[in-house]
């Protein structure tokens, strides 16, 4: 191939690279858009909320137990 041909090829490859970088940057900025990925994201959020609720429930139970124990000890005295 001639020198001009290589330069043309290089210019077109640079254009393809620019397009690929633009797609990657915009996609990263927008975040996932596939249905599977969005479902997984929703599932992770639901699990996080459930875990938080379980922790709150456990703390509430512990508080109840401590209060009952205190009241029992007071009754014995």
């Amino acid at each position, binding site marked *: 191939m001639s*020198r*001009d*041909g290589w*330069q*043309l090829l*290089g*210019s*077109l490859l*640079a*254009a393809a690279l*620019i*397009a690929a*970088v*633009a*797609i990657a*940057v*915009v*996609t990263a*900025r*927008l*975040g996932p*858009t*596939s*249905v599977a990925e969005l479902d997984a994201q929703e599932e992770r959020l639901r699990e996080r909320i459930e875990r938080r609720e379980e922790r709150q429930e456990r703390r509430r139970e512990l508080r109840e137990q401590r209060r009952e124990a205190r009241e029992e000890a007071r009754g014995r005295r």
Partner: protein
Amino acid sequence: MQTVTRGNPTEVKAVLATVALALGAYQLALIAVGYRRLRPSFLGARPATRAHRAVGDAIAALLVLTAFMCLAVFGVDGGLHAAAGAALLAVLAVKVAVVRWIPRAGRLLPPLGLAVFTLLALTWLTSAAGVLGDG
């Protein structure tokens, strides 16, 4: 359109418009080499001009596709975005006509090219920039 874009027409449009804008900026560099305003050692004027033409064809296809998506999904809203987009396609059509069929009007190509890039940037700013800002 919703099926083709899997329910993300706005996002797909933002990607296409951003690719067109990035390539548009590259086009300015290529044609500056083509007109010998820039003289890099690794690229001559003739291959730069030919690459400018090929990349320009790709950008034109991207813009027509993006405009079609925009009209199919959102219709005509009459705002600045619609006006800039319509003007962009009109100026682009004139530029293509000058390149292909009216070579003696070649001195109009630099201002037409700058107008295309300015209108492309304006169209992008009034739509895709907002989508990416929200992202």
